């Protein structure tokens, strides 16, 4: 396999570098005030201070743990429900369309209600994340389980295999690709939901921090916080993609 051509590295590198340079120049030369648009160095400075002395680290940790906890909860629920419904044609007819409808709704709209129910702490954030994540994982699981090849299922029937055996041997492994797709959506939604809940009412967290910084007009720190959020979300997404490739190795392995 050829090594990366220089066009693949040089051009994107140029793009990023060019962007940052242009940013710095516009801020400096346009005389733009730091409270409107901070320069890249200001943001970097705010980032290092926020992480070392400031609350940014604690906020990031809060958001990360709340999101992950909610993810774990929501995904297990979605997976369990998906396995139950996916294996049963009747349940599928009754439940699947409703779940698809639910998934289409902006579930973050529930955030204010959840907060008035569960309070300011992590509980409401975890609940919000769990609710948002369950639907895509459920849909992915059900779709995946329905994707089993009918010939394989016939083979198992002829061999007299029971429901459980067919589920574990054929339907579940075949569903893994779809489940991971659902998980990918869920991860993105998790951070969004957590941040939104923190916007509305919280004592800590990146969402809370971003909002409070905006009232203080501290743009550099705000950008820094947003950057941390982006890295967190992107990092988790990338990790998930890695896991996906390792587990569903037969789709992505060498040919």
């Amino acid at each position: 396999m050829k090594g990366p051509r220089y066009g693949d590295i040089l051009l994107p590198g140029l793009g990023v570098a060019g962007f940052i340079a242009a940013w710095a120049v516009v801020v400096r030369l346009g005389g733009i005030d730091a409270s409107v648009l901070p320069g890249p160095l200001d943001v970097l400075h705010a980032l290092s201070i926020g992480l070392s002395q400031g609350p940014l680290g604690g906020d990031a940790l809060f958001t990360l743990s709340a999101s992950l906890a909610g993810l774990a909860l929501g995904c297990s629920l979605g997976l369990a429900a998906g396995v139950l419904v996916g294996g049963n044609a009747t349940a599928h007819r009754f439940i699947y369309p409703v779940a698809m409808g639910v998934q289409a709704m902006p579930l973050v709209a529930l955030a204010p209600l959840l907060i008035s129910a569960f309070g300011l702490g992590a509980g409401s954030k975890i609940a919000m994340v769990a609710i948002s994540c369950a639907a895509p994982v459920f849909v992915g699981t059900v779709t995946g389980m329905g994707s089993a090849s009918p010939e394989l299922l016939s083979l198992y029937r002829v061999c007299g295999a029971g429901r459980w055996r067919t589920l574990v041997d054929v339907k579940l492994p075949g569903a893994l690709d779809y489940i991971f797709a659902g998980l990918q959506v869920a991860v993105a939604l998790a951070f969004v939901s957590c941040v939104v809940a923190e916007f509305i009412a919280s004592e800590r967290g990146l969402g809370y921090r971003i909002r409070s910084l905006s009232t203080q007009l501290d743009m550099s720190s705000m950008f820094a916080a947003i950057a941390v959020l982006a890295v967190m979300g992107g990092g988790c997404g990338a990790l998930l993609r890695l896991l996906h490739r390792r587990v569903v190795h037969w789709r992505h392995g060498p040919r």
Partner: protein
Amino acid sequence: MDVPGASDAGQGLRLEHIDLVYATSRGPLEALRDLSLSVGPREFVSVLGPSGCGKSSLLQLACGLLAPTAGRVLLAGEPVLRPRSEVGIVFQQPTLLPWKTVLDNVLVPIRAMGLPVADYRQRAEELLALAGLAGFMRHYPRELSGGMQQRVALARGLIHDPGLLLMDEPFSALDAMTRESMMEELQRIWLKTRKAVLFVTHSIPEAVYLSDRIVVMSGRPGRVLEQIDVDMARPRTQDDLGHPRFLDLCRHLRDGFRAAEAAA
């Protein structure tokens, strides 16, 4: 290598006066009408017919996945009332489990039947060696060509030593050259294991090359139009593809189909 335990006694298949009618949203669909055929315990029988004539339904009846509307299906003298594991199946697509190795794929029916896998491991290895895949046991299906995957599917069909092997157009998804070599492979493996085989195809040369007897089916509703014995010596070779008797049989079948098409 003679596979141990290849039993003889009445393992044949008999379909007696089968009617098969499907209920569809547009009314009843007659798939098969008064169809009777049999496969002896060591016979290789091909079913030849146009698309949609119900060939695949035949196979589903034979293994018990479908119940006939009328008539009965007998396997080794006993009526087939529910899915029976004494049959091996090979589909058009290999349909291997992509997350299992080649060896584990051959053992899939064993797992599905709840039998101890360890007991059959050696047999799986022998079957794969017989199919010429000895060096690929730890590989994954995606690393194999279509023909090789189909050979794995064949080994899988034989793992539990079934009395009857059902094959549903197993080579139609392969390219022409692979088809020819697979034909020879199948003959070679069959001669070693000597099962009853019901082989569905719509390739005339394939049917003549491989079979002891050819059952010609009509279009829907499927009936048996004629049965032809292929009286050529075994093992048949590439040279036989040009043999006058071979060409005769092919011509006869082709003419029959053309006539049936014109009449339809």
